[in-house]
C-alpha cells in the first residue's frame, strides 16, 4: 500500500516535469505544425545553464529563470534563422532539429563534461515530508508537483481566458484565416515558441535537480515528451496535461511492478491507443 502511494507520487511528479516540457512543444506544433526535435536538447542545455547559475549565485530561483531565459533566447534564433527556412517541410524540420540537438549536445559535453551532474536544490527544498501513515517522501518532488500545477493553471488561463490566448487557439484552428484577419501569425508564433523554449529550459533546471543531467538525457526525456504529446493529441493543452499524467503513472508503476517490462508497460498501451485513436485523446484531424 505504502509503495503504491509512493509510486503514485513518483508518477505525478514525473508527470509535472513532462508537462513543463510537453505543453510548449504541443502548442508550438499546434500553431505552426513545426516539429522541433531539439526540445530535449533545450531541456538539457537549460538544465546545465541553470546548474552553472546555481553554483555561482547559490540561488535556485535564479537558476530556474536563467535556464529558461537562456533557452528562450537561443530558441528564438534557432526558429528565426533555421526552422523558418524549412517552411512546411516536416522531414526537413525533423532532420534539421535533430542536427541542432546533436550540436547542442556536443557543445554541452565540451562545457560541462560527461559526468552526471545534479542541479543543487536549496536547503529548504531538501529533506523529506512525512505523510499520513508514516510515509517519508522527498520534499523536492512535491515542490515539483506544485510547480507543474502552477504552470498548468497559468497556461490554461492564458490560453482559454485571454485575448492573446484566443488568437493562439484561432491560429491552431485555421492559421490562414487568422492571417486574413490582420494578425501576423509568424510574429505570434515567435512568442509562443519563446514560451515553449522557456518552459523547456525551466524543466531542465527542475528535472536536473532530481533526475541529474548527463549526455544522452536529452533523448531520453524527448521520447517521454513525444509520447505525452502523441497520447494527448498534438496541439492540445488539456491533452498535454492528461498525457503527462498517464505517461508519468505508467512509467512509475511499470518500473515498480514489472521492472523487466517497464518500457512495454509504457509503450504497449500507447501502441493500442494509436491503433484505435491515432490523433490522441484530445487531438483533431490534421
Amino acid at each position, binding site marked *: 500500500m505504502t509503495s503504491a502511494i509512493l509510486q503514485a507520487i513518483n508518477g505525478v511528479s514525473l508527470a509535472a516535469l513532462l508537462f513543463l516540457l510537453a505543453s510548449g512543444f504541443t502548442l508550438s506544433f499546434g500553431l505552426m505544425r513545426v516539429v522541433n526535435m531539439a526540445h530535449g536538447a533545450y531541456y538539457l542545455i537549460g538544465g546545465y545553464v541553470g546548474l552553472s547559475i546555481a553554483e555561482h549565485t547559490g540561488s535556485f530561483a535564479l537558476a530556474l529563470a536563467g535556464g529558461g531565459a537562456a533557452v528562450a533566447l537561443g530558441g528564438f534564433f534557432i526558429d528565426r534563422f533555421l526552422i523558418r527556412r524549412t517552411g512546411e517541410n516536416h522531414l526537413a524540420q525533423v532532420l534539421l532539429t535533430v542536427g541542432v540537438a546533436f550540436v547542442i549536445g556536443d557543445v554541452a559535453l565540451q562545457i560541462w563534461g560527461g559526468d552526471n551532474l545534479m542541479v543543487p536544490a536549496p536547503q529548504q527544498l531538501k529533506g523529506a515530508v512525512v505523510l499520513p501513515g508514516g510515509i517519508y517522501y522527498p520534499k523536492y518532488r512535491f515542490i515539483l508537483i506544485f510547480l507543474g500545477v502552477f504552470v498548468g493553471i497559468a497556461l490554461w488561463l492564458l490560453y482559454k481566458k485571454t485575448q492573446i490566448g*484566443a488568437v493562439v487557439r*484561432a491560429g491552431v484552428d485555421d492559421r490562414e484565416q487568422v*492571417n486574413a484577419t490582420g494578425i501576423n501569425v509568424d510574429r505570434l508564433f515567435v512568442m509562443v515558441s519563446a514560451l515553449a523554449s522557456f518552459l523547456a529550459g525551466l524543466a531542465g533546471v527542475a528535472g536536473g535537480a532530481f533526475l541529474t543531467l548527463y549526455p544522452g538525457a536529452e533523448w531520453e526525456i524527448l521520447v517521454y515528451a513525444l509520447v505525452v504529446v502523441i497520447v494527448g493529441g498534438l496541439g492540445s493543452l488539456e491533452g498535454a496535461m492528461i498525457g503527462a499524467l498517464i505517461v508519468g503513472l505508467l512509467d512509475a508503476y511499470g518500473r515498480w511492478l514489472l521492472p523487466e517490462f517497464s518500457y512495454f508497460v509504457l509503450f504497449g498501451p500507447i501502441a493500442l491507443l494509436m491503433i484505435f485513436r491515432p490523433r490522441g485523446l484530445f487531438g483533431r484531424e490534421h
Partner: protein
Amino acid sequence: MSISAMPESLLSVRGIHTYYGDSYVLQGLSLEQPEGSIVAILGRNGMGKTTFIRSVAGLTPPRQGEIRFKGAQLSGRAPYAIAQAGIALVPQGRRIFRSLSVRENLLLPTSGLARPRRGRWNLEAVLEQFPQLAERMHHSGAALSGGEQQMLAVGRALMANPDLILMDEPSEGLAPKLVQQVGSIMQDVRAHGHAVLLVEQNFEVAMSVADYIYVVSAGRFVFEGTPAELERAPEVLDQHLGVARAHA
C-alpha cells in the same frame, strides 16, 4: 467604365495572372471597384472565382499584374498587411474558429496584434445588426447553424472596420430565406459605406444586390456591365452561367 474614367477606384486589379499549384487559374483579369459599391463576380464552379478573392487577399498571390487599394500597391504584401490596410475576408465555408466562442470570434480582429482600425463597428453595433448572435455569445462558433455562422463571419469582418469586404459564396448552403437575408445584409453593409466584392454562383443574389457584374469563365472575364446589361446579354447567360432566359 474604362480605367481612366474611374480614377477614384477603391480597388483596382490590373492584368493579374494567378496559379494554384501548377494550374494556371486566372489568365489576365482586370477589375475596378469604386468606393461603397457592390461588385459581383459570377461564374460556374471552378472558373477561378475563389482564386480571384484569394489573390486580392494575398492568400494566393498573383505571379503577374498589379493590385492597388486606395492607390497603394498590394502586390507582394502579406495577407495580414493587406487586412490591416482595410480589406476583410468572409471566406468560402465561413471558416468560423471552432475553438473560440462567438464573442471571441468577433473580438479577434480587435486584438492588438491586428492593429485594429477605429470606426463605427464595435461589439455593440455588430450585435445590434445581428441580434441572434447576442444570445449565443458564449457558445462555441462550431455550435451555430449555417445562417448564424454566416452572420458571425460577416460580423467578424465588420469588426475590423474595413473599407472593402471580400465575400466568397456567402449564400452557399443556406436556405432560400437566409439567402435573401444575406442579400439584405450586403445592402446594409453598403449603406454604411463599405464596399463589397462578392463572388457568387447564385445568380439571383448577385443580380439583386450588385451595382456592377463581371462574369468569369475559364480564368477570363467574358462580360462586365450592370445587372440590367447582363439581363440583355442572352449568350453570356446561356453559355457562361447556364441561366435560362425565362428564369431571368
